[in-house]
């Protein structure tokens, strides 16, 4: 068993580094297109974490939705809103914001995560190795006592988002 935990820990470290490194790339890169690629790297790392957390369905969805669709949308938006003169973007109040972010991180760690969950030995291991399947998710999504209302509301939200975005973007098209 020792080998298994070691490889899982190794995979965890690798995916965490990918995820956080990509996020840093997003935060610090001045080139927006490269920023989009970094965002995708970060989200790819997060997909790896989902796999380690035994949620491969979410990992596949993460790749499908983010890298397949949201990345494309972001690149389109980058091209559509490029400033005519400056390709490289500016930052505001970097040091103050850095302090805020680091403070937030430290507060989250010492304020919440470590005292509540870090010292709890029960949570070093998952309570069970049995994990619900995608089928169970599907059953619950359309169950009368389950998630059927959020399921329909999600559809409504997507419809509203699509119509709203079309209305907004179409007006922009008329302007030009």
């Amino acid at each position, binding site marked *: 068993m020792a080998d*298994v935990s070691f490889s899982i820990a190794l995979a965890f470290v690798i995916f965490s580094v990918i995820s956080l490194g990509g996020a840093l790339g997003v935060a610090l890169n001045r080139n927006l297109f490269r920023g989009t690629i970094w965002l995708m790297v970060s989200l790819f790392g997060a997909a790896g974490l989902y796999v380690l957390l035994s949620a491969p369905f979410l990992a596949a969805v993460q790749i499908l939705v983010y890298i397949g669709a949201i990345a494309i949308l972001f690149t*389109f938006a980058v091209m559509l809103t490029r400033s005519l003169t400056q390709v490289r973007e500016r930052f505001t109040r970097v040091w103050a914001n850095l302090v805020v972010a680091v403070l937030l991180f430290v507060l989250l760690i010492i304020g919440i995560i470590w005292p509540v969950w870090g010292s709890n030995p029960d949570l070093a291991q998952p309570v069970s190795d049995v994990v619900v399947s*995608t*089928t169970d998710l*599907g059953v619950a999504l359309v169950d009368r006592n389950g998630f059927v209302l959020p399921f329909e509301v999600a*559809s409504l939200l997507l*419809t509203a988002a699509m119509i709203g975005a079309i209305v907004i973007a*179409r007006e922009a098209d008329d302007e030009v």
Partner: protein
Amino acid sequence: MDVLNQWAFVGVFLLLAPIFPALPIGAATLLRPKKPNVLKSQTYECGVETVGDTWVQFRVQYYIYGLVFLVFDVEMVLLFPWAVAYNQLDMFAFGAGFLFIFLLADALIYAWKKDVLVWK
């Protein structure tokens, strides 16, 4: 454990997959002649010198295609579990799925009516 076992295979595959195309490209780097000059490494636009910035303005049209695609793609997040579990469900589940797809089809019909999906 079994699931992770399977995904370890995918992980190894993920590590190896970029190597297959990288190998011939790398080999080419070693073998090919390398005589760049200013003219060769210019941007190739039909022999004429490049005018202005590459990042020309694009129409919002492209964004709308991406947007509609995104919405349908996300719909799949919820539709695939539904389809997988479909054989175990009752008529109510069909109704729920139908309403779900129907609401999104509405958005598509709206997009039709507004003529935003026609390439202009």
